[in-house]
């Protein structure tokens, strides 16, 4: 799989859109043939759709599966004895979790790609880390929530993680004071899920009128905006809250789905989400036809990472808009976009939305 391996070895933002498109389409063809040849269910889907994977296609012409399909059916392109672990997504009550089958190679690729993407935004040295969550979230190794997986995945980027919350989801002042005394003057990394950061960090600090010294912190947050949208908090309001309670000026949202772990889309300083060379997005209208840049529609996510399961081309239930290509003020080439939230009628499911309050 020459094109596929070539792209996976590149720097995340090494290619302009025009340079990336033909390489990406070729790599996607290779990956699609791999899944056709190793997953009988997937081969039947291609067959029913009359899709000839041996011909070359544009990125938007590859068949997309609804992300939901992984809740209904376990799809895999590896033998059972090669299965390394099965990731399950947020299983809020009443919802079936997705089951994502990983072999060792895919799991390792996810980690490596995540490292390269995030490294492009925050650098390679690991900063003291403040996790806006409770230590108990990652304690249970046997039942691994999407939140725990996110915290652990991002822990690679920090040193000596300190948890800002108690297991009752209250601010842990002992931990916070110790962390701030040791690191408050220097650069630190903060990580948390969007809703948790707002509800359990920004809001209580605002109520108390406390202002922490986190002026040199960089915050990475993700997991969905659904609950904050209900409270009319948008990206700008979120950032204003963080500036107010801690002087936290560098805030990066990330977008991604458990079905395509690793190939996340990071928000730059200009507020745009960026497609790295390993992944792409297509926006579709209500009839599922691709729409031009600037128009709002359903987000289809394309990733070159899923090799052990046919989740490389998925239609999400999120709405987004492509802002442009190769024109971001931050200087990174490639496609940029913004996410508006869940499409109406979609089942509610963000990782951070599974925390139901106290």
């Amino acid at each position, binding site marked *: 799989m020459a094109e596929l391996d070539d792209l996976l070895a590149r720097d995340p933002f090494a290619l302009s859109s025009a340079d990336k498109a033909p390489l990406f389409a070729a790599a996607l063809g290779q990956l699609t043939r791999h899944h056709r040849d190793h997953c009988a269910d997937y081969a039947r889907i291609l067959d029913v759709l009359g899709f000839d994977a041996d011909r070359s296609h544009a990125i938007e012409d590859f068949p997309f599966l609804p992300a939901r399909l992984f809740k209904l059916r376990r799809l895999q392109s590896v033998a059972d004895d090669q299965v*390394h672990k099965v990731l399950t997504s947020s299983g809020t009550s009443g919802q079936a979790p997705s089951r994502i089958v990983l072999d*060792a190679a895919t799991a390792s690729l996810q*980690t*490596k790609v995540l*490292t390269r993407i995030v*490294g492009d935004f925050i650098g*390679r*040295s*690991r900063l003291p880390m403040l996790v806006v969550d409770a230590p108990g979230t*990652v304690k249970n*190794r046997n039942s691994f929530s999407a939140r725990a997986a996110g915290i*652990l*995945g991002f*822990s*690679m*980027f920090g*040193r*000596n*993680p300190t948890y800002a919350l108690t297991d009752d989801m209250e601010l842990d002042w002992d931990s916070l004071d110790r962390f701030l005394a040791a690191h408050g003057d220097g650069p630190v990394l903060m990580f948390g899920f969007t809703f948790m950061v707002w509800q359990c960090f920004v809001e209580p600090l605002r109520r108390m009128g406390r202002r922490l010294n986190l002026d040199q912190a960089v915050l990475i947050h993700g997991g969905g905006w659904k609950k904050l949208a209900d409270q009319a908090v948008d990206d700008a309001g979120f950032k204003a809250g963080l500036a107010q309670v801690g002087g936290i000026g560098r805030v990066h949202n990330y977008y991604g789905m458990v079905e395509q772990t690793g190939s996340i889309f990071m928000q730059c300083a200009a507020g745009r989400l960026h497609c790295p060379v390993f992944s792409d997005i297509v926006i579709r209208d209500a009839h599922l036809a691709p729409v031009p840049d600037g128009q709002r529609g359903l987000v289809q996510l394309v990733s070159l990472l899923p090799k052990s399961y046919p989740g490389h081309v998925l239609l999400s239930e999120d709405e987004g808009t492509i802002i442009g290509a190769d024109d971001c003020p931050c200087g990174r080439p490639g496609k940029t976009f913004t996410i508006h939230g869940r499409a109406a009628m979609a089942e509610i499911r963000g990782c951070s939305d599974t925390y139901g309050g106290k």
Partner: protein
Amino acid sequence: MPFEKLPLWKESPAMSESLQKYDNAFLETFSVDAAALAGDLAYNSIPEWDSIGHMNLMGALEDAFDIALETDDIVEFSSYSKGKEIVAKYGVVL
């Protein structure tokens, strides 16, 4: 040279202090015994060395040698022997 002084017959030197520290990081983080390391223990080969255990091990090694591993090296740290190459990059002589 008297026979018993030939290098082959020399008793193996005592384990270096830093190798002892390196091994201890594994032994204490994973609660395994030294025999497990001899077979080149690898990431995910035992339940204790999962992603949580991995970050605990990295923290233990950073504390033991007073080094700060880069993210790439944490990702590449796939086994007991591979880890020796990695810590060597930080000036740790085992």
